[in-house]
């Protein structure tokens, strides 16, 4: 498995709009996080949802975000986090 990212990498979620079934929640698009772990290789749900079951697999990651960076006016602790599973093609390298 040649995963592009590894635990500890800083990444940013893409901001594109996706037409059709997608498992990247809107609230996390454009946000910056850190790779918590590589979950493995899985078939792309964007393809599976339309009967295309034999496509290539994609690396899936758990990415950790600070809640205060995800929600405007987040009413909790500044250290609170949210972990989201994201497929590789939705992640970009974030410098620094």
């Amino acid at each position, binding site marked *: 498995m040649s995963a592009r990212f590894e635990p500890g990498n800083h990444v940013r979620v893409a901001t594109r709009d996706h037409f059709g079934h997608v*498992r990247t929640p809107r609230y996390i698009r454009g946000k910056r996080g850190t790779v918590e772990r590589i979950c*493995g290789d899985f078939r792309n*749900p964007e393809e599976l949802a339309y009967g295309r079951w034999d496509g290539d697999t994609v690396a899936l990651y758990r990415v950790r975000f600070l809640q205060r960076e995800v929600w405007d006016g987040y009413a909790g602790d500044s250290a609170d986090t949210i*972990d989201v*599973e994201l497929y590789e093609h939705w992640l970009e390298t974030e410098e620094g």
Partner: protein
Amino acid sequence: MSATHEHVDRTDEFLERAFREALIARGVITQDEVDSWIDVMYERTPALGGRVVARAWVDPAFRSRLLADGSAAVRELGIEVGPLKLVAVENTPEAHNLIVCTLCSCYPKMLLGLPPDWYKSIAYRSRAVREPRAVLAEFGVHLAEGRTVRVHDSTADMRYVVIPMRPAGTDGFSEEQLQPLVTRDSMIGVEEL
């Protein structure tokens, strides 16, 4: 043939029956298949999760393995979870975990059985990510100053179980005595034991 206590609209009951009959009549699936999945679901209850948590409480090496690869650790206990890809997250004095699936209602059914209705509600799914502390307070969970909340949104192929903190006053309890103390809600993260 809904393996749930949720109230089913009569219309849906007839529609479901008609659908099942059509699938079987056309040979798409068999009655035997449906029956064996019903059996599987009746076997899956939070008691299975309770066995996993109790073992993690008494065996630190098992806990480490559970945190590293949830499904493999669960299989050590003879619990066959099929395609479930389980991530176990532990509550500590520093952090409290909360599980949600904002996109639908993904839940580790092969380990815990069927999820509660509130878990599947639009209200829980939208609020647990945005205001977890308010949601927790409504469930009666009030966290000590300085404790971090970690929310896990089950957006893809992984499913989650929380390892709650072991309750006070249980020193010296055997695994069998610990197992029934573990509740479904504590393994979702809306209860502390």
